């Protein structure tokens, strides 16, 4: 179950599939994204609450035909230029979007992880988003008559997450901001986890989550696999890289040059356990 990243992506991610790559600011699986770009995988439906730089790269590289998201900015910096260029100008190809609120998309994952066809929340109402999105309906509470939002379960073909540690049996430990990763993984048909390292046993951590091996398809060892986001207790967020992205990504030419140098011609280190 411990495999190289290139093998895992080749076997488990295919053209036209829906792919969720989660990690809320923390533990964003950048190495896996770069490998998907290198393998030239196309027509993906990319799902992620915050597209962030990871999907800005993939959208700019032409991997995606659809994006399901709930907040598309460069946190603390400003716009995601490749995301905007795709939506505003269809470059490098048209990008269909399905837009949600954070609470709505989180509950779509939650329903998916729970084996339910939908989830309910107090949300969307009073927002124009309700007129412009799919997979949200307003229903009546069968007990009180209150009107609530129902969101359809989301079950990605593949979920990819990054974690600090796995053990030799393929169980995964992550800690700090654990975000939506457990739900995204449990909602998916296939699960790839990139990790900083393999350890002999897990030590107690505040605010940790464990994902058992029996729901995971592949583990790949990718040190610094979430940079320029961060892995708590391993490395810090590279805020300068987030700020620099604003310049790199602004124009197509600088983006293409960057992609060519930093991703396409920068193969992943092959790490095997």
């Amino acid at each position: 179950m411990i495999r190289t990243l290139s093998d895992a992506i080749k076997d488990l991610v295919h053209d036209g599939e829906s792919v969720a790559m989660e990690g809320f600011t923390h533990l964003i699986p950048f190495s896996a994204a770069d490998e998907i770009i290198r393998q030239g995988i196309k027509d993906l439906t990319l799902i992620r609450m915050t597209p962030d730089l990871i999907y800005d790269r993939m959208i700019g590289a032409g991997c995606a035909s659809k994006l399901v998201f709930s907040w598309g900015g460069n946190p603390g910096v400003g716009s995601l230029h490749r995301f905007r260029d795709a939506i505003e100008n269809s470059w490098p190809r048209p990008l269909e979007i399905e837009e949600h609120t954070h609470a709505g998309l989180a509950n779509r994952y939650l329903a998916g992880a729970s084996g339910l066809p939908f989830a309910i929340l107090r949300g969307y109402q009073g927002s124009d988003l309700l007129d412009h999105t799919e997979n949200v309906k307003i229903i009546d509470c069968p007990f009180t008559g209150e009107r609530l939002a129902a969101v359809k379960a989301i079950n990605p073909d593949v979920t990819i997450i990054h974690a600090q540690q796995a053990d030799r049996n393929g169980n995964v430990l992550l800690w700090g901001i654990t975000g939506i990763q457990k739900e995204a993984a449990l909602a998916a048909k296939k699960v790839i986890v990139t990790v900083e390292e393999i350890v002999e046993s897990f030590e107690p951590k505040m605010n940790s989550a464990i994902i058992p091996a029996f729901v995971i398809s592949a583990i790949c060892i990718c040190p610094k696999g979430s940079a320029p986001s961060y892995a708590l207790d391993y490395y810090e967020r590279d805020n300068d890289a987030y700020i620099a992205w604003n310049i790199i990504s602004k124009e197509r030419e600088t983006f293409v040059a960057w992609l060519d140098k930093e991703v396409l011609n920068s193969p992943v280190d092959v790490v095997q356990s």
Partner: protein
Amino acid sequence: MSTDQIAEMAWSADEMMTVSAARSLTNTDTCFVGIGIPSTAAILAKATHAPGLTLIYESGTIDTNPSQLPLSIGDGELAQTALTVVSIPEIFNYWLQAGRIKIGFLGAAQIDKFGNINTTIIGSSYDNPKVRLPGAGGATEIAGACIYTTIICRQSTRTFLEKIDFITSCGFGKGPGSRKEYGLTGKGPRNVITDIGILEPDPDSCELVLTQIHVNVTVEHALRSTGWALKISDNLKVTQPPTERELEILRTLNTTSNAHT
């Protein structure tokens, strides 16, 4: 403002806005914080008059105590200084949706006189926007479920509009009764804090009224910076200038951050 007025000021309009927002929080409040100036204001409040303030971010960090300004909503600093960190479904369902949070601190790209805000698109077409903004994030449900919200944004005729391009998050909707119709459990905007003053909703009409103006700002300037016929309170107050301590702590905070807000 005249050039004389600006020369007299020992602080910027953004600093006055941030200090005013900080002052609106009390020591016993719980505050759901968005990133940028709302976060700066909340951290400033905690560092000055409200050390007991409970800060909650949508990344799941509850009762966090950052010593510097986070660039993102999920910086390591926020997790490491938090009482606890919960999952994203938990923060939205158990904490926000359940009405446990007193104040939601929100920003806006556009706002109308009922406190509805737009952070989604600029332009007349959702499908072909002139400018694509980041979208809702947590804002729609923060606006719905916090007991009150405070909106913090710079006031100009580009942002304060009779009709905004898209309602991302509901303030008072179409006016009295809208929040109830939409099933929103919170009470809606308590105030809008800008670089010009503070607007509060009229209890009957729900329309935002200028109730406080910052020192050295004129009512005429407020009227010229608003895209609707702004009503001025009969009892207009003037904001106390930032204290030396407020400015000193705010500026120290700003130098410890990479944030370009």
